[in-house]
C-alpha cells in the first residue's frame, strides 16, 4: 500500500507539488492524468525514491521511503517515458535487475525467455539493445522491470510516442500484471488509456489531485471547469441555481432554464452544499442531446429549446452537429443515421432536447 502524506516539492522558486495526499491500496491500478509539467513525473519519482519531497512523506507498506532499506526499493519497479537501453544485448538488458538480486543463471534464463515471448521479441536475445526501435526498447524496459516481479509497478507515460503494436503489447502486459494482484501506479495523458487500464483516476493539476475517482466518475462528473476542459468535455455554460424540487435542480443558463437531476451533480460534492443563487458551470454531454425536427417534437416537456443548426461535421462514425440556441453554441454528437433522418425535413430550425441526466453542474 502506498500512502502519500501531504507531499510538497519545490524546485528553486517553483512549486511543483503542492500538498498531495492519497492512499493507493494493494492491488489497485491508479492512473494520474493531467497536463504536462504539472508534477506527475515528480510524484512518481518521489515514490520511486529518486527524489525527496520538500515536505511531507511517502509510506510504502508502512515504511517511510526516506529511510528505506534496499529490500523496500526492490519491491518497486519503474518504467520511464524514454526507453532505456544499456549498451548490451537485449538479454543482458532484461537480466540486469535479476543479476543485481543474485538470481541463478537458469532462473534468469527462464524468466528472460518467458518475458521475451510475452513482449513479442523472441529471438532478439543477442541483438544489441541500442539498435532497437523506440517501441521495441520500451517493451524491453518494461520487461526489465517485470522480470523482477515488483509488488508495485510505477510507469511514467510508458506508451508516449510509441507505435501502435508496442502500445498494445505494453498495455496488455500492464493489464495482466495488474490482474495478478500487483499494484500499478501510472501517469499518462491519454485519457482513454487510463480509462481502459485502471480502477481509479486522479486528475493532477497545479501540483495536487483536483479530483480522484473511477473513470466513469471523472469523465461524466468532472468536479470543475478546469478538469472538464482537460478531459475534453464540451458544452460548458455559465449557470446559476434557481431552485430545487424533489429530484431536480433548476439552473438558469444563457439559453433558458435547465432542469438537472440532483444526483447527477458531482458525487464529490454533497447535494446539501449547493444552494440557491450559487453560480457555477453547467456541462451537457453531447452524445445525449437529441435533435427533433419541428414536426417530431412530441410530448417532451422539460429542457426543450429551439435552435438553429450551424454546422455539421463528420467525426469517425459519429457526426458533430453545432447548434445555436438563442446565441449559445452547443455541440451535439449524433449517429450518422440520426443526422440523415433530419435531412428529410427542414434542418435549420430544430428542437433540441437535453435530458436531465445529461446535465452536470460543477463549481468554477
Amino acid at each position: 500500500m502506498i500512502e502519500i502524506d501531504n507531499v510538497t516539492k519545490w524546485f528553486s522558486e517553483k512549486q511543483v507539488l503542492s500538498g498531495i495526499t492519497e492512499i493507493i491500496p494493494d492491488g489497485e491500478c491508479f492512473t494520474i492524468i493531467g497536463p504536462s509539467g504539472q508534477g506527475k513525473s515528480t510524484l512518481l519519482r518521489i515514490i520511486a525514491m529518486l527524489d525527496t519531497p520538500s515536505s511531507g512523506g511517502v509510506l510504502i507498506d508502512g515504511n517511510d521511503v526516506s529511510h528505506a532499506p534496499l529490500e523496500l526499493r526492490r519491491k518497486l519497479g519503474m518504467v520511464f517515458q524514454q526507453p532505456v537501453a544499456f549498451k548490451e544485448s537485449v538479454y543482458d538488458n532484461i537480466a540486469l535487475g535479476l543479476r543485481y538480486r543474485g538470481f541463478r543463471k537458469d532462473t534468469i534464463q527462464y524468466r528472460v525467455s518467458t518475458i521475451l515471448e510475452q513482449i513479442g521479441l523472441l529471438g532478439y536475445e543477442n541483438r544489441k539493445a541500442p539498435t532497437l526501435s523506440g517501441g521495441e526498447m520500451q517493451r524491453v524496459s518494461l520487461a526489465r522491470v517485470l522480470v523482477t516481479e515488483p509488488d508495485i509497478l510505477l510507469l511514467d507515460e510508458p506508451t508516449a510516442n510509441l507505435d501502435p503494436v508496442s502500445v498494445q503489447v505494453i498495455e496488455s502486459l500492464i493489464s495482466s500484471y495488474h490482474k495478478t494482484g500487483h499494484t500499478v501506479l501510472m501517469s499518462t495523458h491519454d485519457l482513454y488509456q487510463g480509462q481502459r487500464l485502471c480502477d481509479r483516476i486522479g486528475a493532477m493539476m497545479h501540483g495536487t489531485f483536483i479530483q480522484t475517482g473511477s473513470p466513469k466518475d471523472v469523465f461524466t462528473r468532472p468536479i470543475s471547469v478546469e478538469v472538464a476542459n482537460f478531459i475534453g468535455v464540451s458544452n460548458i455554460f455559465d449557470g446559476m441555481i434557481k431552485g430545487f424540487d424533489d429530484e431536480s435542480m433548476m439552473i438558469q443558463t444563457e439559453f433558458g432554464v435547465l432542469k438537472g437531476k440532483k444526483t447527477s451533480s458531482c458525487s464529490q460534492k454533497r447535494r446539501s452544499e449547493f444552494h440557491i443563487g450559487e453560480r457555477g458551470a453547467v456541462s451537457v454531454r453531447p452524445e445525449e442531446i437529441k435533435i427533433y425536427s419541428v414536426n417530431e417534437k412530441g410530448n417532451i416537456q422539460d429542457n426543450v429549446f429551439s435552435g438553429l443548426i450551424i454546422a455539421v461535421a463528420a467525426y469517425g462514425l459519429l457526426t458533430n452537429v453545432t447548434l445555436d440556441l438563442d446565441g449559445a453554441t452547443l455541440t451535439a454528437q449524433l449517429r450518422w443515421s440520426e443526422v440523415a433522418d433530419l435531412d428529410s425535413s427542414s434542418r435549420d430550425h430544430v428542437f433540441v432536447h437535453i435530458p436531465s441526466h445529461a446535465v452536470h453542474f460543477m463549481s468554477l
Partner: protein
Amino acid sequence: MSMKREPTYVGIALLILTIFLTTPVMGETFEDKVLMIATTTSLDDTGLLDVLGPAFEAEVGDNVVVQWLSKGTGVSLEYGKRGDVDLMMVHDRAAEDAFLADGYGTDRRVFAYNYFVLVGPESDPAGVAGMAPADAFDTIMEMGMEDSSVQFVSRGDNSGTHSREKAIWKSAGYEYADIQSAGDWYIEGGQGMGSTLGMADEMGAYTLSDMGTFLAYRGDLDLVSIVEEGDDLLNIYSAILVNPENEPSVNTPLGIAWINFLMSDEVQEIISTYGVEEYGKALFNGAKGNEDVIAVSVDETSLPLEIAA
C-alpha cells in the same frame, strides 16, 4: 554485470604479466652497491666514463655499479649539496673551492686536465685566430655588435665551461650582465657541450669548448680551432667527495675507492691516451706527474684517500 567482464580482466592480466616479465631489467641493485656520480658533460660526451666506469666495476667486482648523471658543473654541485650523489667530477676551481669551504664536500683530488679552446667557423669572420683569449673575446664582442655574421654561442648553464667563459669576459674587461644584454650576436644555449657545439656549427658561430669534447665531435662539425693557447684556457678536472656528515647515506667507501682508482697509474695512463686512436690526439691529460703544468700540489694529484676507521 558478471558476463563479458572476462576479456577486460584478461587484458589487465596481460598488462600485469608484461610488467612482471620485464621486471629483471628493472631489478635495482641495493644502494650500497651503487656509486652515483654527478659529472660534467665533457667527461660523459667524450665517452671517457664509458671506459672508466666498467673498468672500475670489473676491478671492484661484487656487483658494484657505477652510475653517472651528466649535467654540468653547476647542477652537479647542486646534487652534491643535496646529497643525491656520492661524488662529483667537475672542472670549476672557484666553485669547487666555495663548495669545499661551505662544508658540502670533504676531499678533492685532481685527476685530469686539458685546455679550453675557442672554436669557430673556418671563415673566421671576426678575424681573431691566434689572438690571446681575452683579446679574441673582446674583438668578437665589438664585431658582433655590427656584423651579423659574427655570433657567439654560450653554454649558459653554469657549467665549468660556462664559468670559464665568464671569467674570460671578465678579464677582457666586461661585466657578464652587459655581455648577456649586448645583442643578438650572443646566444645563450643552455645545453651541454656536445649540443652547444652542434648549435654553433649550425649557426656558424664561435663558442668556447673543452678540447676533449671538441676533438671527439670534430668529425661531425665544420668548426675549427681558433684560439688554443693562453693561461686562461687551462681546464682542470677534479673529483670531490660529498660530505657524509650532511647526508649519511652517501656511499663514502665506494667514493674513496673511485678517487683512488682515478689516481692510480693504470687509470692515469688510460686517461692520458684516451682518444689517440680515434681522434689522433689524446682528449685529456693525466694530472699525476704534471703538477707543475697545472699549478697544483702533488698531494692533490696523488695522495690516496683513506677510509676512516
